[in-house]
């Protein structure tokens, strides 16, 4: 079945440093979504990418969808302590075409 991988698994950064997490799929994706989960919280939808090569920005967050639609990245500029949490990507192709989630990248930001 389809697999979605994310790297790194963990990332510790100093506040103000940049952060990037990468998502790779074993199959071509029609779209990809990103979610953020704060410690002890529930996943919250961030964004959806649909087009090949698409780039979307949300303040300090930049999301990219690869040209081949098999990978994606999330880049955070000048991290803040409010960015702490686990970032998940999800792509369709699971049971009943439901999303398959990556294992997530846990971000820690040291003040």
């Amino acid at each position: 079945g389809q697999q979605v991988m994310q790297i790194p698994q963990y990332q510790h950064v100093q506040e103000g440093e940049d952060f990037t997490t990468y998502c790779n799929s074993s199959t071509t994706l029609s779209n990809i979504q990103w979610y953020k989960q704060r410690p002890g919280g529930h996943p919250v939808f961030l964004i959806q990418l649909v087009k090949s090569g698409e780039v979307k920005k949300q303040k300090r967050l930049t999301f990219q969808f690869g040209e081949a639609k098999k990978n994606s990245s999330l880049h955070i500029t000048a991290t803040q302590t409010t960015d702490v949490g686990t970032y998940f990507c999800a792509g369709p192709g699971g049971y009943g075409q439901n999303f398959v989630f990556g294992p997530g990248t846990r971000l820690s930001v040291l003040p």
Partner: protein
Amino acid sequence: DAGITQSPRHKVTETGTPVTLRCHQTENHRYMYWYRQDPGHGLRLIHYSYGVKDTDKGEVSDGYSVSRSKTEDFLLTLESATSSQTSVYFCAISERLAGGSNTGELFFGEGSRLTVL
């Protein structure tokens, strides 16, 4: 936040006992899902529903059953809980099939932490 309520939020039970987790939504979304979250595995789909009495299996459905008798309620049942089912369970809803050709975003509940001793 979307109107999704999970109950109970925390439960400790013993191996072999039945457990039912409830998800209640006030958004009138068609699709409802049960996921489990374990370290290193992200979120894995257990079962999902695309309407009243319409349910289907997900990636990790063994040992779980579901029912949806009303649009707003989606129940997850562990008939005989095992220690491997210790996990955090999230209910989610969406207007359109998450992952489908016209995909919708998922709205998650607060989660139910289940410990099976």
